[in-house]
């Protein structure tokens, strides 16, 4: 099934070279594409921190009713989709190949779960192979579907920056998540900030730009441990003087409450 050019959502039609048609796969309604949407894009080889941020953004935006759009790539893209699926929200994957191709192969199950609830779309006919030159073209659709694009982590010459360029050309909002200035993974996002992109410091920043409100989450009662993050469990034991068991239990409760997450042994705040 596909959408003809005249049936495309208005935002996508407004870009300077809208696709001739858009193939759809999945249980989601085509109307989904016209709902308020945000793109989350970034590096494939991302850091655990980047992955966490992408997942959290995907989750919280989807929870607020926003459609999360990304490119099904490894790393940031995949995490953003997963985050949205976690809260049973909607997420759209835009492919640079035919919608019947599971690319990358590692995201086959992810693609299936997206198709079960939402949509996988592509301007290419089913059967078209993935090719490097198709991805930048795909990025114009990601940017075109969305009112705003968020770049989480990007190297100096990253596809995510191409998406951001498209978004700027089409007059859409661009957010960038500030990164450590010493990390190669931050160069792209920080360069965007220097050029005038809006720094993303909380999900509310994005929702406000869409005129939406953050869903009321129960007031976080993080306790003193939360203020000491990021830290390893051992550092917390040393700083608080509590036993390893107690610190571990408290950290796990923060994880269950969605206030913190662990990656490679380091606990970070989520909210």
């Amino acid at each position, binding site marked *: 099934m596909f959408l003809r050019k005249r049936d495309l959502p208005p935002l996508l039609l407004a870009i300077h070279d809208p696709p001739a048609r858009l193939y759809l796969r999945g249980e989601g309604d085509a109307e989904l594409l016209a709902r308020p949407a945000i793109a989350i894009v970034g590096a*494939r*080889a991302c850091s*655990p921190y980047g992955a966490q941020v992408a997942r959290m953004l995907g989750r919280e935006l989807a929870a607020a009713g926003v459609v999360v759009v990304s490119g099904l790539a*490894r*790393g940031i893209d995949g995490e953003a989709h997963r985050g949205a699926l976690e809260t049973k929200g909607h997420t759209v994957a835009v492919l640079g190949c035919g919608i019947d191709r599971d690319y990358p192969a*590692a995201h086959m*199950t992810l693609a299936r779960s997206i198709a079960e609830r939402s949509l996988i779309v592509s301007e290419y006919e089913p059967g078209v192979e993935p090719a490097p030159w198709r991805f930048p073209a795909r990025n114009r659709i990601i940017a075109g579907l969305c009112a705003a694009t968020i770049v989480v982590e990007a190297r100096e010459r990253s596809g995510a920056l191409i998406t951001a360029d498209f978004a700027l050309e089409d007059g859409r909002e661009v957010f960038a998540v500030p990164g450590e200035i010493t*990390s*190669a993974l931050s160069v792209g996002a920080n360069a965007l900030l220097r050029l005038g992109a809006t720094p993303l410091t909380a999900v509310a920043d994005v929702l406000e730009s869409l005129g939406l409100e953050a869903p009321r989450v129960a007031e976080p009662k993080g306790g003193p441990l939360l203020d000491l993050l990021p830290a*390893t*469990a*051992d*550092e917390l*034991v*040393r700083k608080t003087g509590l*036993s*390893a*068991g*107690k*610190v*571990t*239990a*408290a*950290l*796990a*409760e923060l*994880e*269950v*409450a*969605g206030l913190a997450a*662990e*990656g*490679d*042994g*380091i606990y970070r705040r989520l909210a």
Partner: protein
Amino acid sequence: MLARAVTFALVGLEPRRVEVEAHIQGGAPSLTIVGLADRACQEAKQRVRSGILSAELEFPGSRVTVNLAPAELKKEGSGYDLTIALALLAASHQIPRNRLAEHASCGELALDGRLRRVGGVLAVADGARRAELERIICPYDACAEAALAGIEPVGVRHLSDAVAYLRGELEPPEFVIGNGMPRRRPLDLADVRGQERGRRALELAAAGRHNLLLGGPPGTGKTMLARRLPGILPPLEEEQALEVTRIHSVAGLVDPDQPLIGYAPFRAPHHSASTAAIVGGGPRLRPGEASLAHLGVLLLDELAEFQRPALEALRQPLEDGELVVARAVGSVRFPARFQLIATMNLCPCGARGDPGAHCTCSAQRLARYRDKLSRALLDRFDLVVTIPRAHALDLQGGPGEASEAVRSRVVGARLRLAGARPKRTASADELLTRAVERLPLSGRGRAKVAGVARTIAALAGSDAVLPEHLAEALAYRAPAELATP
């Protein structure tokens, strides 16, 4: 003239009765061994001949045939030397035949007639006791091992001693059985500074016999921690100690002065180990590392470097507690109820988890590294803990808590777990339900969390699993990137 002597062959860990018949006939001097004897066993001819002559006994000057019955059972190794020599001496009327028939025997002969230890003496002694033989004649330094089977051993240093004993001219010498404790003190946890989370996980693993996976960048002390697990495990019970000693005896790994292994064994095969080396087998159907770690600890250091077939072969024993090794000659069961502890880096370059280094692994390389471990194997780890690079400040403190103190808590928790197991409270149940909704946690993952929470409660001396126990258990679940493909 014909004489018989009895010994036992090993099939896996099981002794099978073997009758050694020696027949002296007229004819040109010769010695022939028949009955599926392998190369080492065929070479017994030379050792037996030299041994008998060195003991200043007479080697028959005519045609001698030695038959090892039953003839279809393979006889391997040098342990038949003594039995062959004694049968030969009985056939040539140098020792009384009826007295020899009441004894089992085993041991290798040196060319000067002295006796050497062989592996599996305990199993042979077991066979002798079950066959209701009176005593077992064995090398003197295998005495203590043979005595564990509950049969009286006759320890002999030289073939001439065995002959003197059978002629009634010599009483069996005294020997000492050790106390079953390790000769070397195990490594102490006091050496580990900081690492509170890792120490805690190790204690939980010891208390609940949980399988533990330690991840983290190189040089953070994963292996150091893992090697200290044996020091905090309780000693084995008597029956368990015998079971472990039997396996180690067959592998020829018991200490002659201290044969009984009364403590949890610890095995750490190198990652280049073959599948047969780990699960057992080979032409002689020997127990592998997994069986040698029975009722103890199997440490796989650098888990992802092991060959995948070797790792997959461990799934059966992790599930059933035993290994069935099938070969053309038949299949053999080896007990293998071990506790698995493994270490691995978080990525092939090792920089992941180290704030001071930058990981250069591509996504594909990382995926390949993790794919080496099947989900099925990772599912067997109840505790997964990441040990990040320790802060320099953590290393400045005094020594950590000593193993002795930790072990007494472990013993207490084991007693509690063996009795009425702690049950989850309603609020702990509620937390678990919330966690299943919120965190990526599979059905099996949920069951593992529940099990670990029980151990935590037992260690805390609590009769019920409280929410705080459950919360801590949640933190040791497998991280999402290992749990989901």
